[in-house]
């Protein structure tokens, strides 16, 4: 009786999944277990499947993903902290036939770039915002972010976020969903296979809606920061489910009227 060996299976014709070639073939600069890498991969899979590599301009932020342009095999501009939506506004207005997206973290999008975020959303610019929310400033060493949870510890709130003096976490995604200029606002995650697949679907919809001139699509991805949270990657994903998701529930917040 024939036995199917590992070698029999590992053949090009049997390939069912590999890292997309639109992710540059190099090691990512992110910490082990960080959701950025998965978010990058889903983004590039969508660009690959839509066949829009030559028509896509990305904008990288300041923060952990400042080096995103090193990993994404498309034309990318690196923005000053928080200014990505301003860059994207100009790119999309000057080249309306292009697909334009920004990739921003919580400090970038919801603190220093709040004005740029809200006004780009309010003007109904036709680009996609990918918002990675891990409730902390990862790159600079784990400081409090606008999205840090109440009582959550960070290096600038070592005794936990005191909402009396530091305010409450900003739900900017819900906030921009109230603006007529946004067409599709959703909150996703990338820590389980099911969530990753949903995120990919959301990203594809976001690109399609904004290209169809419906306005800004914002895909928030609630993610982990195991280094900043001082946990193992697996622990951080569990902590995220137990603590982040109740405050930042997953799912669509706004979908285009036609749906």
């Amino acid at each position, binding site marked *: *009786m*024939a036995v*199917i060996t*590992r070698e*029999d*299976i*590992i*053949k090009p014709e*049997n*390939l*069912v*999944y*590999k*890292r*997309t070639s639109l*992710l540059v073939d190099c*090691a*990512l600069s*992110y*910490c*082990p*277990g*960080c*959701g*950025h*890498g*998965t978010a990058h*991969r889903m983004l590039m899979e969508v660009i690959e499947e839509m066949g829009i590599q030559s028509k896509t301009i990305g904008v990288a932020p300041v923060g952990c993903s400042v080096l995103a342009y090193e990993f994404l095999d498309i034309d990318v501009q690196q923005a000053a902290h928080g200014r990505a939506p301003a860059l994207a506004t100009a790119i999309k207005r000057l080249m309306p036939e292009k697909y334009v997206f920004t990739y921003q973290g919580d400090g970038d999008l919801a603190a220093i770039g709040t004005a740029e975020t809200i006004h780009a959303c309010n003007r109904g610019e036709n680009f996609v915002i990918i918002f990675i929310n891990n409730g902390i400033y990862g790159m600079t060493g784990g400081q409090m972010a606008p999205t840090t949870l109440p009582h959550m510890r960070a290096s600038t709130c070592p005794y936990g976020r005191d909402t009396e003096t530091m305010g409450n976490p900003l739900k900017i995604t819900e906030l921009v969903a109230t603006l007529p200029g946004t067409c599709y606002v959703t909150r996703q995650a*990338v*820590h*389980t*296979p099911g969530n*990753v*697949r949903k995120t990919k679907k959301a990203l594809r919809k976001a690109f399609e809606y904004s290209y169809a001139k419906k306005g800004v699509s914002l895909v928030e991805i609630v993610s982990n920061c*195991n280094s900043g949270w001082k946990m*193992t*990657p*697996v622990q951080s*994903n569990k902590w995220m489910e137990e603590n982040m998701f109740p405050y930042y529930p997953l799912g669509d917040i706004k979908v285009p009227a036609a749906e």
Partner: protein
Amino acid sequence: MAKVKGAIVINNERCKGCEVCVDVCPESVIAMNKNVNTKGYHYAMVTNENCTGCTNCAVVCPDGVITVYRVKVPTEVV
């Protein structure tokens, strides 16, 4: 009736040992190697032949280091 059989290839040098893939495998195929790669990470490894090629591990791997293959196997062959 056909059954599926899979196999994964892990890029040991790019694996950062985060272990996220370990828990998502429904067949408990993956474990961490006692050895480390040149970056010093314990890398993921295949421990048995129960892989069904479901792609869960590859989809969730933050560094995209897992490649998945799958074949349909006629029942009589198994």
